[in-house]
């Protein structure tokens, strides 16, 4: 299995970042960067990364199961993450969440039928002073109003 040049370059940089014989250390970053490209941790990806890091597929399973951001199920083209943790909750994050669920007709870690958007209720994303906050894939959106969220969702669905 091969990856884009950019990803391969990242892998190379990664593998040289750890002490001799400690390739396993690259496992989680590698899975993250590979997942960014593939969309999810597939069986093939798992085996490939296991090989490159010198671990067993079981060791990859252990890690993938542990970390919330690693997933073995596909998400939407745009992954919409809404924080409802305390600071966001106080600023209406929970309402944004309900709004998104209603509008998209999906729930936590679900994908719209057309595969355009997936939704995740996330824990604190470190944007508390700019709450309520959401993440659109890796992009932060701060001080999000219901209106903005509405427009965003229209856009995401329209972009299909």
């Amino acid at each position, binding site marked *: 299995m091969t990856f884009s040049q950019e990803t391969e370059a990242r892998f190379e940089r990664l593998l040289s970042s750890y002490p001799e014989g*400690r390739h396993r250390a690259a496992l989680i970053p590698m899975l993250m960067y590979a997942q960014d490209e593939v969309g999810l941790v597939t069986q093939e990806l798992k085996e490939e990364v296991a090989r490159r890091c010198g671990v067993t597929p079981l060791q990859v399973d252990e890690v993938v199961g542990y970390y919330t951001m*690693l997933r073995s199920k596909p998400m939407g083209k745009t992954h919409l993450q809404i924080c409802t943790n305390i600071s966001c909750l106080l600023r209406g994050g929970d309402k944004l969440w309900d709004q998104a669920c209603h509008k998209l007709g999906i729930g936590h870690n679900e994908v719209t039928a057309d595969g355009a958007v997936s939704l995740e209720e996330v824990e604190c994303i470190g944007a508390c002073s700019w709450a309520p906050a959401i993440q659109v894939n890796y992009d932060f959106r701060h001080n999000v109003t219901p209106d903005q969220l509405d427009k965003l969702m229209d856009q995401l669905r329209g972009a299909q």
Partner: protein
Amino acid sequence: MLYNPPHPAETKILTRRFGLPNSESLDTYLANDGYKAFLKATGMTSEQIVDEVKISNLRGRGGAGFPAGMKWSFVPRQSPKPKYIVVNADESEPGTCKDRVLMENDPHQLIEGVLIAGKVIDAHRGWIYIRGEYRYLIDIMDRAIDEAYKNGYLGRNIRGTGFDFELSTHTGAGAYECGEESALLESLEGKRGIPRIRPPFPAVSGAFQCPTILNNVETFCAVPSIILHGGQKFADVGVPKAGGTRLLCLSGHINTPGVYEIPLGFPMMRAINELGGGMLGGRKLKAVVPGGSSCPILKAEECDINMDYDSMAKAKTMLGSGGMVVLDETTDMVQFALRIMRFYQHESCGWCIPCREGTLWLRKLLTRLNQGIGTSDDISMVRELAGNMLGRTFCPLGDAAAMPTISIVEKFRDEFEARLARPASSRMPAPGDLVSIA
């Protein structure tokens, strides 16, 4: 760029370069004292550097507040093993968003802090463990690191000092527990974020079982100023047992939330009223989460205190990670308690029984109480179960879940009782399920 316009009540040391044009660039950094502290440190002995840090009374900014100088002195420098530096940029404690602005606005300050720490223990390699959600910050840090390499501030024989240092970023993948130092090290090694049995502490056996200095981003960021201007100067800014400034992440029901740099010992009410611009909509203050969600909550009448370690301890709470969340009178405390427990339940690594089972049970119980179903005994049981976790878990996450819960039930029990008394029609809907098994 994410930063607040300077506020007159702030004391800007770590954030003093914020807002300068291209503040994240090496040029701006160099033009504003950048890397001077490191060069100065290369002329000092390890003991001298550690002494300055000790004099500065710098305490860890990650949450536990352990004196940084002391921690550095625990590293067995004579050990034949390689030594490492690890930066904790996992920043996941709800209410906390300060490491983010430090890395975004002034990445080189962090790199310089790391270099100085590396100098102290003769380490030649370090990692910045950044939570996976902060992908854009990883890019910023990577760019800054590349810039530093290109200009000889990282790599071999740094600026002709004969000191070598390699630094890289390392991404997390969504796990609060990986902010706990030993779990972070496991994660760094490519494993599940399960904390380690301690002792040995990271200073003795850390990354790859080698002696390691592990500190929070903000802790490292304070180091260049301390070395450049002397520990005493930093110490003078704070209170006797805790020196310098710290970044306060203000959030919640206030008018101007943001990240502000304040001296230790800063009065909490001033933070709310001056930095925070007062309560949102002029409503009344109800409570404050003083330093991230794991700190026991303070009722409004308890908020007239100074924010330093001792005063907070006296009020039976903590300074924590600087995540100060302000709650006004409209806040539903039952829902708030549930939200906190949902977080810890979701983030419990599952290693030890009391945390794994305790958070789950409490989450279920609080969910039910939040729906108005239950009895007064159930409320007592929340208090009791949290108490049964406290001090008995494998790592402090269990305590972090128990402490706020205990304080909320104790201080706002009437709200729980009222919830049970409410007619069914006005019950809160069940919150969405956050737990994923995937």
